[in-house]
């Protein structure tokens, strides 16, 4: 046995309380990691959002469609907009899985001829792409979605319509992989032509929005203004902005929530420190008599204080480590997977940054040490005779 061994053995003094405290600390660390990971995933969403890709939507709201002919302004039929490199258009289809209807994924009817020119970070094997272009009922899906429902190339899939009612039959012709973190890896891409031709006359030839890449990201704002100017005197006006601007606008609304989460994560640490402080203080109070014995044997107050600090740090370390241990499966495999698959547009990539786990572990240990400081100090002021007289 050693002095530090003695310090650590004291956690066995009251196993139940030690275990509860360690578990409590672990849960606090899990919550902290969860919140911090959410915040950083959110920020990563902004950082990764493309600045060189513009979305042109209905001036009022993206829910309202634009006439298909608007696209003629982009693709060269009526000249080009200076600075625009490539453009495509698509409709939000909003299909659902026939049996697992709560599992959300984005279904998009896209222009097969131009879509992948505008989204080069989605990569499809050339033969699969060619097959898809040939088959009007073909679909290309993200690899996350393929995993989620166990779909593979060649499968026939029937989806349930919502915006466009009825059963929709598709054949999976390809699976795309994301070469950038910002890409939603769970999309279901179908042919716009197929959708359009299936619609009643009155609903045809409407598109959800236009997406364009630009040559120079720093001119995104000017180019956006130039696009919108084209439609100024039309009956439906447009609003164009970069993906990054759009994400930021969305996050602007959420910024109050973000700072609230930020504060909550600190409050959780504060509660964790109180739990630790309470446990340590209770243990120290119960062991006053024991410390009296140690003092009688010749141990010094600094030994006693060190034992208590060591014990606190050790409990903090155990709690922090356990917290991280449960955080990885819960945050990355469970919740993270779910968010990536279901809210991929906002959380394309949800995983615990190393800096967050390091911070969490460091905080667990440091705050446990801090919580042990007061009991350690008061124990170091114990008088040997008073302590011995206290029957523990």
């Amino acid at each position: 046995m050693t002095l530090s061994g003695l310090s650590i053995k004291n956690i066995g003094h009251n196993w139940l309380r030690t275990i509860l405290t360690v578990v409590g600390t672990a849960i606090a660390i899990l919550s902290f990691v969860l919140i911090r990971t959410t915040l950083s995933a959110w920020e990563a969403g902004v950082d990764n959002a493309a600045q060189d890709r513009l979305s042109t939507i209905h001036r009022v709201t993206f829910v309202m469609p634009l006439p298909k002919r608007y696209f003629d302004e982009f693709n060269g039929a009526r000249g080009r907009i200076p600075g625009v490199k490539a453009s495509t258009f698509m409709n939000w289809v909003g299909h659902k899985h026939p049996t697992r209807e709560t599992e959300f994924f984005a279904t998009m009817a896209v222009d097969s001829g131009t879509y992948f020119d505008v989204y080069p970070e989605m990569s499809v094997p050339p033969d699969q792409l060619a097959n898809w272009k040939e088959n009007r009922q073909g679909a290309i899906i993200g690899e996350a979605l393929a995993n989620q429902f166990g779909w593979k190339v060649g499968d026939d899939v029937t989806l349930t319509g919502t915006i466009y009612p009825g059963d929709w039959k598709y054949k999976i012709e390809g699976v795309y992989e994301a070469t950038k973190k910002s890409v939603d890896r769970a999309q279901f891409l179908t042919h716009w032509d197929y959708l359009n031709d299936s619609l009643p006359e009155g609903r045809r030839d409407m598109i959800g929005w236009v997406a364009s890449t630009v040559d120079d990201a720093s001119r995104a704002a000017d180019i956006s203004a130039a696009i919108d100017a084209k439609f100024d005197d039309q009956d439906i006006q447009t609003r164009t902005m970069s993906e990054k601007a759009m994400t930021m606008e969305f996050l602007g609304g959420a910024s109050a929530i973000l700072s609230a989460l930020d504060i909550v994560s600190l409050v959780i640490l504060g509660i964790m420190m109180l739990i630790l402080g309470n446990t340590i203080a209770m243990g120290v109070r119960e062991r006053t008599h024991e410390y009296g014995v140690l003092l009688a044997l010749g141990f010094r107050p600094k030994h006693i204080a060190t034992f208590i600090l060591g014990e606190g740090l050790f409990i903090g370390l155990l709690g922090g480590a356990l917290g991280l241990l449960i955080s990885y499966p819960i945050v990355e495999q469970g919740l993270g997977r779910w968010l990536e698959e279901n809210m991929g547009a906002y959380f394309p990539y949800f995983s615990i940054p190393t800096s967050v786990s390091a911070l969490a572990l460091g905080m667990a240990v440091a705050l446990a040490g801090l919580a042990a400081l007061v009991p350690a100090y008061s124990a170091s002021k114990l008088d040997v005779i008073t302590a011995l007289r206290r029957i523990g």
Partner: protein
Amino acid sequence: MSEEATSAETSKASAKASDTTTAKRSPIIVCRKIVRSFWRAKERLDVLDELDLEIAEGSFEALMGPSGSGKTTLLNLIAGLDRPTSGTLTVAGTEVSAMGDAALARWRSQTIGFVFQHFNLIPVLTALENVELPLLLTSLGSSERKKRAQIALRVVGLEDRMHHRPQQLSGGQEQRVGIARAIVHDPKIIVADEPTGELDRKSADEVLHLLERLNKEFDKTILMVTHDPAAAERATVLRKLDKGKLL
């Protein structure tokens, strides 16, 4: 041995201490006009009142007296846990009444072995680890510490219980582990405050026998506070304390 000390011995105890070797040896504990007072609500209470005492090296002394007479207070002073309000106290050649906290703690860890009424073993440690405890303050290496702790447990006859925790031991066994802890660092003096107070007759006799052996075979000076006349019988000298004065 001084005259007061001799006169303080009861006739019975002195008769028992027939071997004169004890009386011839020089005193290891010398108290001169020791006063220890406590203040209770502005009222001064002289628990020990100008007490003079000499204890010869190698003796086994019992201290009796009514509750509240100051036995524990005196024992604490001699053991260097406390300092007298006035007077001088010399133990094992050191004037403990003049020492600072740190020096006193170091001195205690080398000179005194403690046996407590409530055994006071650390519950999370095994018997062996409890006995090893005082050695953590020495410069001994870990294998040497362990060896010495095992020897001390052998002396008290509990080598086979060394990996047991206090909870897994009987009261008598706990107290024997307590005694092993008191001797592991080979102190000159053992102080025991009612060491049999919590024990049944049989366990008490075993503990007393052990203390006798430590006194005779290992030449430890033992000062034992007790309420038990049978325990006092084992001592070579019996002193009685009443209202802060030796009778």
